[in-house]
């Protein structure tokens, strides 16, 4: 349905954070720190200040206890100066700490978003640079998730990073503070912190595989719902509602049980993580009273250490959050890297566009092609898609490529555009091998109208001009030729109407007409239409073809066609079967001399006429 639908279940991961993941995780973080040193510094300073001030809070409380509360209690006189100082310190610490929170959280967010933005730009650049052959080797869903969920996963640990750094700072300061307050009490604290960290790591180890599984199950459940609702007619007409519900309920139960298990893990660990500092405070009190009794420490120091334990223990969790993100981050980073490290962009020559204003001359000589990864059922390399294909289209002539499904017509169309290079043979435009042309040159001479009209998330105008400097009257003229002026004029904002993602609001025929207008507005010297009018009804198609032929510019046209009316308009037909040219000549000649051709064309024609008459 949408790009977001391209989620796929996360890959299996090691259930434990191994040493190598840890090392790699830090390496990924280092990449981010090097790229965004200033934001990182700002948010880290924020975090460290926050940590320091949290400790300072405890110190102020201890100071107030010793210098204000106890003297006031013992002597009955309020030390005004000290009181004001304590109050000012509380407020001051709070305000600065507020500012530090803003710096830390804002910085962490911005750093994360910037890293994502950087990678998204880089990955999409790579997509645009690599040849179509590379795209054909990778599933669409994989490429979309490389640019989206993988990028997000890679930089997920940045969010808790400053907090974690700050926590480490805070722990160091707290420990020093404790050591300065009272050595014995500090030892208690030093036992609590490692225990909290350890429990956290154990928690993450149990929790993260479960959460990964929950994510994957959610995606699977969504896939079942999608499929089941799409196939509703089959489900309903064969009375399969109960079985479908069972299929959904099974997955929903697995999801439920996994979530509950994750919940149980949390139910056990959360209270442990909360109880540890509380118990630490109690131990401090018990030990502290003895120390005060023996005169080795002041009451304020006991309070100070107790308070430190309470406030520092909670943020220690952020270390767990950071480490917990590592496995996903490392996998995401590797996937993004693998796209960025790809090489093999198409090589271009230096030749400029061929001169000339009329139709171009197209020569296809001994062209052979097979898909690199194609294998047959025995694991041998698959049959050639095109084999020794040779034909010439003279300037201004129209040639129809005809053949049954998988005869190689569409592959040939992509070769004519140098979206892919042939394995053997050459394709030449006005005598120049396409491989010798400079980048972008071919597009100034030729235009392709593909089988599946692709529209950008842009206005109608933007979709037709694609940024070229073309006046509105030319756009309208192209639309008229493509028989699309009527519906565009009826759109709420005419040419300025935004089409949304892939023109979802338009019908297939309307999309094809826009796609055709896009080609026509360029007045190409070579026009290749790959079954580009299949979603347009035959009457409209006939008008389009008539308009094309009467056009001022005498373009050379290559058309992949099924409809007899379309084929009939061509000067010559190239009849393909199994990747080879089996016959070539004017349509009516082929009809009489080649029975296979006649059967194919007439069969399509019968289906066509029926559809027209009976709808």
């Amino acid at each position: 349905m949408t790009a977001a639908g391209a989620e796929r279940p996360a890959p299996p991961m090691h259930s434990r954070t191994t040493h190598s993941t840890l090392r790699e995780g830090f390496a990924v973080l280092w990449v981010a720190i090097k790229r965004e040193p200033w934001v990182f510094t700002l948010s880290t300073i924020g975090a460290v200040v926050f940590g320091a001030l949290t400790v300072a809070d405890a110190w102020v409380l201890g100071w107030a206890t010793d210098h204000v509360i106890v003297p006031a209690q013992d002597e009955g006189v309020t030390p005004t100066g000290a009181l004001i100082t304590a109050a000012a310190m509380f407020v001051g610490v709070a305000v600065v700490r507020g500012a530090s929170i803003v710096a830390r959280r804002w910085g962490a967010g911005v750093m994360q978003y910037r890293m994502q933005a950087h990678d998204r730009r880089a990955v999409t650049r790579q997509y645009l640079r690599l040849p179509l052959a590379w795209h054909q080797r990778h599933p669409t869903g994989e490429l979309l998730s490389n640019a989206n969920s993988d990028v997000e996963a890679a930089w997920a640990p940045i969010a808790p990073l400053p907090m974690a750094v700050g926590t480490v700072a805070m722990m160091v300061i707290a420990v020093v503070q404790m050591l300065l307050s009272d050595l014995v009490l500090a030892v208690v604290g030093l036992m609590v912190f490692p225990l909290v960290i350890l429990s956290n790591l154990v928690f993450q180890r149990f929790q993260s595989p479960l959460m990964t599984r929950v994510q994957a199950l959610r995606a699977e459940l969504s896939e079942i719902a999608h499929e089941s609702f799409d196939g509703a007619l089959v489900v309903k007409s064969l009375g399969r509602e109960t079985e479908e519900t069972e299929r959904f309920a099974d997955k929903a139960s697995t999801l439920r049980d996994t979530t509950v298990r994750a919940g149980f893990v949390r139910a056990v660990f959360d209270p442990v993580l909360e109880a540890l500092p509380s118990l630490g405070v109690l131990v401090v009190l018990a030990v502290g009273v003895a120390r005060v009794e023996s005169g080795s420490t002041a009451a304020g120091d006991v309070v100070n250490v107790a308070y430190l334990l309470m406030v520092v223990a909670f943020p220690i969790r952020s270390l767990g959050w950071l480490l917990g993100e590592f496995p996903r981050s490392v996998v995401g980073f590797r996937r993004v890297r693998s796209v960025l490290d790809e090489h093999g962009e198409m090589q271009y020559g230096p030749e400029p566009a061929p001169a000339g204003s009329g139709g171009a001359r197209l020569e296809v000589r001994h062209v052979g092609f097979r898909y690199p990864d194609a294998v047959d059922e025995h694991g041998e390399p698959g049959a050639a898609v095109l084999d020794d294909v040779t034909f010439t289209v003279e300037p201004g002539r129209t040639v129809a490529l005809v053949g049954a499904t998988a005869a190689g017509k569409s592959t040939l169309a992509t070769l004519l555009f140098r979206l892919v290079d042939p394995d053997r043979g050459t394709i030449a435009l006005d005598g120049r091998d396409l491989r010798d042309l400079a980048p972008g040159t071919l597009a100034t001479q030729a235009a392709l109208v593909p089988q599946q009209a692709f529209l950008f998330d842009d206005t109608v105008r933007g979709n037709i001009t694609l940024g070229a400097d073309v006046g509105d009257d030319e756009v309208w003229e192209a639309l008229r030729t493509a028989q699309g002026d009527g519906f565009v004029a009826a759109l709420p904002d005419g040419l300025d109407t935004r089409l949304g993602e892939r023109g979802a609001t338009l019908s297939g025929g309307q999309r094809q007409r826009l796609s055709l207008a896009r080609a026509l507005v360029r007045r190409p010297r070579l026009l290749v239409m790959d079954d580009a009018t299949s979603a347009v009804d035959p009457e409209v198609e006939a008008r389009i073809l008539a308009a094309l032929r009467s056009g001022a510019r005498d373009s050379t046209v290559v058309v992949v066609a099924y409809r007899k009316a379309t084929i009939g308009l061509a000067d010559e037909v190239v009849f393909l079967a199994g990747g080879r040219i089996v016959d070539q000549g004017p349509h009516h000649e082929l009809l009489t001399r080649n029975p296979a051709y006649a059967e194919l064309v007439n069969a399509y024609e019968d289906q066509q006429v029926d559809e027209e008459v009976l709808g």
Partner: protein
Amino acid sequence: MSTPTASRPGTQGSGTDMLSGEAATAMATLRRGVELSPELAKGLGLTIVFAVVATLGRVLVPIAVQQAVDRGIDAPGGPDAGFVTAMVAVTAAGVVLTGISSALMTARLFRAAEHGLATLRTKAFRHVHDLPILTQNTERRGSLVSRVTSDVDQVSQFLVFGGVIAIVSVGQILVATVVMLVYSWELTILVWLCFLPLFLSLRYFQRRLSQAYATVRRQVGALLSAVSEPVVGAAVVRSYAVEARTQERIDEAVDRHLDASSRAQALTAFSFSLGGVSAGLANAGVIVLGVLLLGDGMTPGTILAFAFLVTLFVGPVQMGTQVLTDAQNAFAGWRRVIGILDTPADVVDPGASGTRLPEGPLEITFDRVTFAYPGGPPVLHEVELTLPPMTRVAVVGETGSGKTTLAKLLTRLMDPVEGAVRLGGVELREVPFDQLRERVVLVPQEGFLFDSTLRANLRYGRTGADDAELLAAVDELGLRDWLEGLPRGLDSRVGQRGESLSAGERQLVALVRARLADPDVLVLDEATSAVDPSLEMRINAALDRLTEGRTSVTIAHRMTTAERADLVVVVDKGRVVQQGTHAELVGEGGVYGRLHASWVAQHEPRVDREG
């Protein structure tokens, strides 16, 4: 992402629309939600007891500190180690008890919420299959999927995360306040005064944050769309050499997303920091006022206890905006799911109380049948039709004549507005679904395949059919060599929506399914997509074998189908205008004569040319 789809008046009348449930209040939603998922309320009493204990336990440590300072460490007669040790032991036991309660509360909440929501999802999923919008309003399928997935996830997320936080937070504030009041009412008022502005501003921040994140979500949509262009449109981008322009557009979307996210983040950070600032103010105030009040029942321990109690306020304030947003989203999602379940199914299964169909061949009658889509004009007008058993019937008519509606009524995908469709004399509304689906089967135009093996897909025709039965059905339709031509036979994966097979092959699968279902009445919606000639012949041969010995009603898109039929029914503008054999009707002229003449005329050029 939601692409703004123009709403089409007429196709979304009241009957096909889902109840959105927008108007329901939070209480009503909660009540109805619990009614639909009784597991949510099961054992709730005990869970609340654990929650209360867990919340109460949070003030143990501050009280312990106060007691230890006042009556132990700083006791008038010098430090009292005995007292402190005893108190520490009691408190430690309390802390452990609190932890256990808290664990039990969380575990029980998870179990209740997840069980309740799994039930809700499954119920909603089942119900969606009964809703007419699923087959009538195909563009809204995506939103139906989110009803049973992300909407429910949101409720779950809130109940087990936000819900716990909300309960604990409110409890924490209440308990802290009560304890404070016991110590000193003056200081309590002071603390509340320091936090009050923040409590009051929670809603404001929550609204601002909701807006900010709504913008982020919109930008995420635009971003995903832009990022997908170089992938999905790879060929177009290259053939028009618009790489630079595409990149520019992506960069713009990336930048806008970055801006929106950064802005939302800044707002979050600011609202989050306010809790800490208030706590600082409260602490300063407590010290000042506390010291001034020393002696009047105020002790140093009390002042320190307040410093600890104030920290209990900070958490709830900081989480408050988040919890409010989660709650809002969760309730909106919950309402939407409930809305689905509260939308009545148009076509209701009479179940066990229905009438069984008679054995043997079935006669089909349409008795003054009128049908209109909700809010639309009638598509069929008082159709009277009798189709004798064991006949091959072809229904012919132009696009929009109402012939497809006829097929949907006959398979009871919809019910007539007036009149009745009868099968063997029994009105379709009376026939239990399990029997109806066994005896009447529709073969749709597009053979929809599920992403699984060919075997699993064929089994949609008959649940639990074994390989021998599958192969027998394949043989019977003369498709054995086709099956053997597939690389892995019945184990072949068909891909998403059957994409690994051609359109014609998907139709073959649909025919084998129908053969397996072995119905008395077969309703076929003929395919219109272009199919290679060799496959076309195969499909026709299989169709002939499938319809043999059954009553079949074909919505014909091929004139040759009408030629071969025993009976042709001609539909025009919602009425049956002609009936008879092909030969009779051609002689009769009328609508059929006109259709036939036009068909012959369009074939003539070929006849001429081939001479």
